[in-house]
């Protein structure tokens, strides 16, 4: 099976999943008992006004007709317009996504850079001092409530110590965003050589990224430790020890044999972190996709919720597909059979 065929198969397999998710989200928001009409029209609206808004939004149609209409639009690449702002949802999602990605990529990257060496270190002597300390810290990272962590960080480092800028978004008030290339303010500012902007964007990034890093590193430490202990006990590593290979080689064999399960775990964690990140975005007024989704849910903006959920599902599918491709490259036993 060639790579092209493999990709095609995997992409085709995403379609029914996406359809199922669209269906579930569509129905769930409608049976949630929320009726956004009163929010939209205001408390003083007359019955005639309410009926008018209802028919404008298509809410007077039967639910299946509404769903069919939504699907037809979806096929044309139209996610509908937000009921609150009237803006196209697709545009909103695309505008918000880079902010979230920036936060998550930095967070998971740093989380992996801390978590993997810590986990490997723990696994060399399970029960040792280093292991005990790392496990306690990891447990702490597991049990801290996300939004509380964000608030405490802001309280300590902005309010008490004054080291960090206020959590009011992705860039200080004195600066305007750099020209968009990657969507990350920090990288774009560096590319445009706007050093002041870059400095401000970096400062804004630090606290929320540290929050995501703490949340991301905890399970990575735990998983790395478990995987590495298993790999170290495997016949292959025992034989490497028995044949007197140098310590560095032995460590490399352990790392290399842990790579595939680790990568798969981090990818799953990455997709799962979208939810956690939305709380951090909320605390730091980050203006990313997570915050967008949270606002949409609490305000009963049905089309925005649907667009948000679909975007996250497709993102997860993409991340897992890329992971599988990497595994195929690094793992000689992997085949292209999905």
């Amino acid at each position, binding site marked *: 099976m060639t790579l092209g065929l493999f990709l095609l198969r995997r992409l085709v397999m995403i379609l029914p999943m996406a359809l199922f998710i669209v269906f579930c989200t569509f129905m769930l928001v409608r049976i949630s008992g929320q009726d956004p009409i009163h929010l939209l029209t205001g408390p003083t609206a007359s019955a005639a006004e309410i009926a008018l808004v209802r028919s404008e939004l298509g809410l007077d149609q039967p639910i299946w007709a509404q769903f069919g209409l939504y699907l037809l639009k979806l096929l044309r690449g139209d996610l509908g317009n937000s009921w609150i702002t009237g803006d196209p949802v697709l545009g909103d999602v695309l505008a918000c996504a880079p902010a979230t990605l920036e936060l998550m990529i930095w967070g998971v990257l740093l989380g992996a850079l801390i978590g993997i060496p810590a986990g490997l270190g723990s696994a060399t002597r399970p029960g040792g001092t280093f292991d005990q300390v790392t496990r306690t810290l990891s447990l702490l990272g597991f049990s801290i409530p996300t939004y509380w962590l964000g608030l405490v960080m802001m309280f300590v480092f902005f309010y008490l110590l004054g080291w960090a800028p206020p959590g009011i978004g992705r860039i200080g008030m004195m600066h305007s965003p750099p020209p968009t290339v990657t969507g990350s303010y920090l990288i774009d500012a560096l590319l445009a050589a706007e050093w002041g902007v870059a400095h401000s964007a970096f400062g804004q990034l630090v606290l929320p990224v540290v929050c995501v890093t703490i949340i991301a590193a905890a399970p990575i430490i735990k998983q790395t430790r478990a995987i590495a202990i298993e790999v170290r006990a*495997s*016949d*292959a590593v*025992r*034989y*490497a*020890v*028995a*044949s*007197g*290979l*140098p*310590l560095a*080689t032995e460590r490399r*064999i352990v790392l*290399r*044999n842990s790579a595939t399960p680790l990568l798969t775990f981090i990818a799953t964690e990455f997709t799962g972190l979208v939810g956690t990140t939305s709380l951090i975005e909320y605390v730091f007024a980050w203006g990313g996709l997570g915050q967008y989704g949270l606002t949409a849910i609490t305000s009963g903006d049905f089309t925005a919720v649907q667009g948000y959920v679909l975007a996250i599902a497709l993102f997860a599918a993409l991340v897992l597909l890329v992971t599988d491709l990497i595994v195929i490259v*690094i*793992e*000689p*036993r992997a085949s292209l059979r999905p």
Partner: protein
Amino acid sequence: MLLAVEDLHVHFISRSLRNRLRTARALNGVSFRCEAGEILGIVGETGAGKSLTAHAAMGLLRPPARLIGGSIRFAGRELASLPDAERRALRGREMAIVVQNAKSSLDALCRIGDQLIRLYRAHRGGGEAAARARALEVMAAVGIPDPERRMRAWPHELSGGMAQRVLIALALINEPKLLIADEPTTGLDVTVQAQILDLIVGLARERGMGVILITHDLGVVAHYCDRIAVMFAGRVVETGPVRAVFGAPAHPYTRALIGATPERLTIGRGTRQAGPPPPNLYALPEGCHYRDRCPVAGPECAAPPADRDLGAGHLAACWHAGAETSAAKLLQSRDGSA
């Protein structure tokens, strides 16, 4: 003296669910010697401690296995007191082991040739080209057809027998002074088995390599080994020159073992009942561990038997050794003629 093991004790120490220490006395005073150029066969039923002895000699014990006492001297050096780095340098270079589980012991993420080259260069340094030439040579020597092509193979592409041969090639690539082969020819057909054993015997004779051959196959011992050590419940119960032990087995367990070999079963005489359960290592009986299964056990066997010297290096740990029993005479006459 190449390898001298004296009074080796290894215990498995674990905790029960009630947090009580549980000790399995796996090796209870194992002693044997192996000279340069000599082939020592170690036989015994499953659980007798053959592989554990091999691992202890290589310094590969891992928790819960613990070296409790005894001495392992390799070429005059006491291994237990040797620093970790020096032991590592010995393993795979001076003393090599062929482990069981050939397929899973190879590094799944490294091509066969690269594993051979890696091992050679780890101990000998030198260039890639010299290592490659040596790898090809040793692969051809262990009967791997088309070595050039096999160098590029991944471990998962090999059959069990081929993996076994790769493992033997890995053990021999650095021309060790001592080879410990733990059932090296299981899974190989008879012609290949003979080819590999002939190769090992040849190396022992030509280069003075000491060989410890752990096997279930008494035929292999009779044909290839100079001396034999019979193990039962973590102790060498009888040892001596192959001819002497097979000619006049002095320990009842040795007699049972010889009586249980398949060719005797087919003849129909001297048949023994299929193996009774091995003794419980958590609660070994006082005195002779073979007492419960022994057909000639008497009241004197409640005290631990000392090694009895039967002349010409033939030792047996049995109170009745030397006293000719009718069973011994029967077997002696049959083995003497065989």
